[in-house]
């Protein structure tokens, strides 16, 4: 039997130990990073599922910061025609019919896992990304509005007029349907936040928490596990990525 003789001096021992340590730790570090987000050049993947946790207890009735921030972020103009003006996000006031208590919450696209808007879209312009964000492909939307008919949350708007000065990261144009895109440009830039969530935090309310539901270590996952939360119209079985606490 051949015998192997190991030459090991102090320098090579330290070098090899260091390499072994790095090889052991690196995947963990890398995976941890991946679980939290992804590089800008990396395609969206089902490893993530982006969502929001909205805490009704933290939402102030007087505050409209999330709506204002959303409009600014996406270049949504107010034409003074409330029935046709686009709203990605709206403040919904709920009054308990028996107790009379009221609360407010922001309402937007709920980014369903099984979105009815995607089911009914004839051209496939409404689609769900691998990371759970429901979007409209503005190149193939024909403006039939069937998705608006099907949405249980009334989350979509139709662009009723000519637009000018759109922001580059949110392509919008007359005759197409649109809705909250969960600030997908920020997600793709690795910022991992949304305009509404940032604005809410800035106001000190912390009512809107954005994060990766698939990452067990994310704050949103921890809170979803810890607190009782509500899925709006859970009877429809759509498995929404936006959940509410305190309702």
């Amino acid at each position, binding site marked *: 039997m051949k015998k192997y003789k190991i030459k090991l001096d102090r320098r090579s021992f330290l070098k090899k130990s260091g390499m072994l340590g790095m090889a052991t730790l690196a995947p963990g570090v890398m995976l941890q990073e991946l679980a939290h987000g992804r590089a800008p050049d990396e395609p969206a993947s089902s490893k993530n599922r982006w969502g929001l946790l909205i805490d009704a207890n933290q939402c102030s009735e007087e505050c409209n910061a999330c709506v204002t921030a959303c409009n600014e972020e996406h270049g949504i103009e107010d034409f003074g025609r409330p029935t046709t003006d686009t*709203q990605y996000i709206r403040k919904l006031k709920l009054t308990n*019919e028996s107790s009379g208590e009221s609360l407010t919450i922001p309402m937007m696209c709920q980014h369903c896992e099984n979105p009815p808007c995607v089911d009914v879209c004839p051209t496939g312009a409404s689609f769900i990304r691998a990371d759970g964000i429901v979007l409209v492909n503005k190149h193939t939307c024909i403006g039939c509005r069937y998705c608006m*008919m099907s949405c249980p949350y*009334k989350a979509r708007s*139709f662009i009723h007029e000519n637009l000018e000065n759109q922001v580059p990261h949110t392509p919008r144009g007359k005759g197409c349907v649109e809705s909250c895109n969960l600030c997908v440009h920020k997600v793709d830039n690795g910022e991992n936040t949304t305009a509404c969530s940032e604005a809410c935090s800035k106001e000190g309310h912390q009512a809107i928490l954005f994060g990766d539901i698939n990452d067990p270590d994310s704050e949103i996952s921890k809170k979803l596990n810890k607190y009782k939360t509500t899925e709006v119209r859970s009877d*429809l079985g759509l498995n929404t990525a936006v959940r509410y606490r305190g309702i």
Partner: protein
Amino acid sequence: MRDKTDYVIVEFSKAILIYGLIALSLIGLGFYSFITLEHEGHWITGMNNQVVWGLPHVFAIFLIIAASGVLNIASISSVFNIKMYKPLGRLSALLAICLLTGGLIVLVLDLGRPDRLIVAMTTFNFKSIFAWNVFLYSGFMAVVALYLWMMFEARYNKFIGKVGTFAFAWRVTLTTGTGSIFAFLVAKEAYNGALLAPLFIALSLLVGTAVFYKILFWMDRGLDIPMGSEIVKRFRKLLIYFIFTVFYITVLSHLTNLYVTKNHGYEFFLLFSLNTYSLLFWGCQMIIGTLFPLLILYNKKLSESAVGILYASILVLFGGFTMLYVIIISGQAFPLDLFPGYSESSTFYDGVEAAYIPSVYELMLGLGGVGISAAIYLFAIMVLDFTPKSLDNDAIALAGIPDPEPKIEENKEEPADEESKEELSEENQDNKQPKAD
């Protein structure tokens, strides 16, 4: 069975001129509306982010279901083998194509991006009933065109039965598809039910029959194509059958909703609130569109006159149109209940009845579709022999006579045939009443 009817190519006349000009004017209005919508956007219409489908969709669906309904007249002859309807077969198929074209054009021109029609024709999501409808509508055109070919070409008359049956199956599927646009919208209480599909089929039969009768009446008065009492009698019966069918399914669908507690809100909104939709439902759909036509159709004097049946047909068309308006608009206007147990309010009109007032642009666009249907029909009857020369009782009776036995070879000459025609039609005049039933 051989087609014994004489068909004519309609010559240009005062009636054609008047109706042609009306049709072209309507097309002009529709085109103006389309151009304005394209330029300005949909904000000038009454449609909004709450009521996303409005009057153009009511017109479009009305024309589409009328298209499948008028084909029923041809089906009665070639599928259900009641040969007296045979002279109406070509017209029936032509009208189906005309009405479908008009309806689809309204639907397309109301799109936010009608310029992307090619996308809708080439990119499909087969989970969407809309995508299926693209195939159902274009396939319907092709099947009906084939049906017409079989009717026109004497050599292929023997295939009319088979092609007619296929066309009948297709039109039932097509109307099911149209009803299913609403039937499977789980979010909306008003639409949540597969009963909408048979309701749309029944409505299509009713509306199609009424449209057809109106055309026959116009042919009688405007084109001198005489319409006999037999046609009047038969269309009266068809209208009665179909009015009761629509009424039955309407009652059934509302009773179903009333049984389900969560749907009480919508039923109360539609049936018992004093709003636009309940007034339209009770006043226009049920009283003017259902009760009044039945009173006419059962009135001893009116039910026997061609004008009486025309009035009934017009009321039925009004009722059918109102019914679609009520179904399509009220279902959207009724607020969604996102949080049961809570009342909701927002800047996006949560918790309140959504407002919708149709604009003149929508009306013009819808009428443009009617104009297109009429223009195609008028053009077609002037270039091809779709129109039977006569629809008097003799012509209808003759169409119902079986072919002579093949063994009678020596009687093939024309004069003999004419004689036998006369004899048989005389016979049929005597025995007409039992045959009509």
